[in-house]
């Protein structure tokens, strides 16, 4: 895997890289170069399978990470191409032209994260959800518990007592350095 990483670095400039397992390596690259890299890997280096396409929300950094996972069926090696895009109006280039099944992945990421892939068919078409009106649910700032409390009633009449707090109250645990 070292060779291909080296070659990528030579062709596509500075990258972040890491060999996770003998048959799995990770590459971080700027978003503009991601799709050219994917194309090159598919056309020239035998990484013809798009195994997976995923997104990660790094809300603290204000970024979404897109991860394309390519597979080389000859060597069974896997290459993880990661790229970070801005969290405001996120958009990325589609790979549906290279791999037809990417349409589904891109449709799902569009629905679940709100990342748009201009040019990919089925963008904006609901895939999993129906009648969803809130922010895309897989974003970190979507609070599923708050949503449930607001919209999905549960059964009432339960009362949990936290042991730690309960003991503190019952035995008169006090602090003297802070009012």
């Amino acid at each position, binding site marked *: 895997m070292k060779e291909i990483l080296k070659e990528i670095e030579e062709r596509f400039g500075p990258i972040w890289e890491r060999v996770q397992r003998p048959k799995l390596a990770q590459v971080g690259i700027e978003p503009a170069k991601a799709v050219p890299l994917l194309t090159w890997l598919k056309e020239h280096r035998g990484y013809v399978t798009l195994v997976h396409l995923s997104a990660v929300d790094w809300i603290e950094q204000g970024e979404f990470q897109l991860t394309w996972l390519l597979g080389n069926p000859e060597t069974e090696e896997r290459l993880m191409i990661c790229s970070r895009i801005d969290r405001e109006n996120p958009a990325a280039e589609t790979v549906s032209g290279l791999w037809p099944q990417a349409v589904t992945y891109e449709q799902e990421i569009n629905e679940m994260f709100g990342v748009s892939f201009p040019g990919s068919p089925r963008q904006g078409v609901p895939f999993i*959800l*129906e*009648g*969803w*009106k*809130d922010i895309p*649910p897989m974003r970190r700032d*979507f609070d*599923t*518990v708050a*949503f*449930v409390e607001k*919209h*999905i*009633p*549960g*059964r*009432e009449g339960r009362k949990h007592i936290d042991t730690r707090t309960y003991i503190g109250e019952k035995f008169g645990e006090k602090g003297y350095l802070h009012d």
Partner: protein
Amino acid sequence: MDDKIVKPEPPLGGPPQGSRPHAPVGDGCFLGEEMKPQAPSYKEALARIKNWFRANSLWVMAYGTGCGAIELRPLATARFDMERLGIAMRPTPRQSNVLIVSGYLAVKSLKRVIRSYEQMPSPKWIVALGSCTINGGMYWDSYNTINRLDLYLPVDVYINGCMPRPEALVAGFQELMRRIKKGEADGWRHYMENLDWYKENQKKIITDWDLPEYNW
């Protein structure tokens, strides 16, 4: 039926209880008003006979709504053989009188389940499996699954556990049959009589409401 409809306090607190004037058990849904027998004792006896027949021909709609459906297969096939209890799988709602809600219901599924349920001819019963139908189960904090089935559909029997085994399902069906024979399993009637309450709850959670309005 109109005079019987009660309008319970909407939001929550569980389905309305005991608000319905008690009709003779198992009274007609197939029989028209003019065909209804007159003498109470005769009526009673007929109801009993009808209930006995109903209890022994539970036809389950084949709709695996959730993970509990996996245990319906052993139940329906050779090992546990539910046909010896008079229970059979039917492919469409029009032929069925038992709806098994096998666990959690995603909101998208709930809509289909409601529609299927409303297409089933009365009398019909709902068997709910597992924790998820009672209080959300392990998906209690999921934005896409309901937590309490009884807000949206009338449940006759809950089979507890996650997930209930075929043996527990047998016990559940036997309980359902017992209740039908006694004339206690009347969730379908409850649904009809408190349709507004159920519809209100359903509409709260199903945001793109496009179900047909059935007219009972």
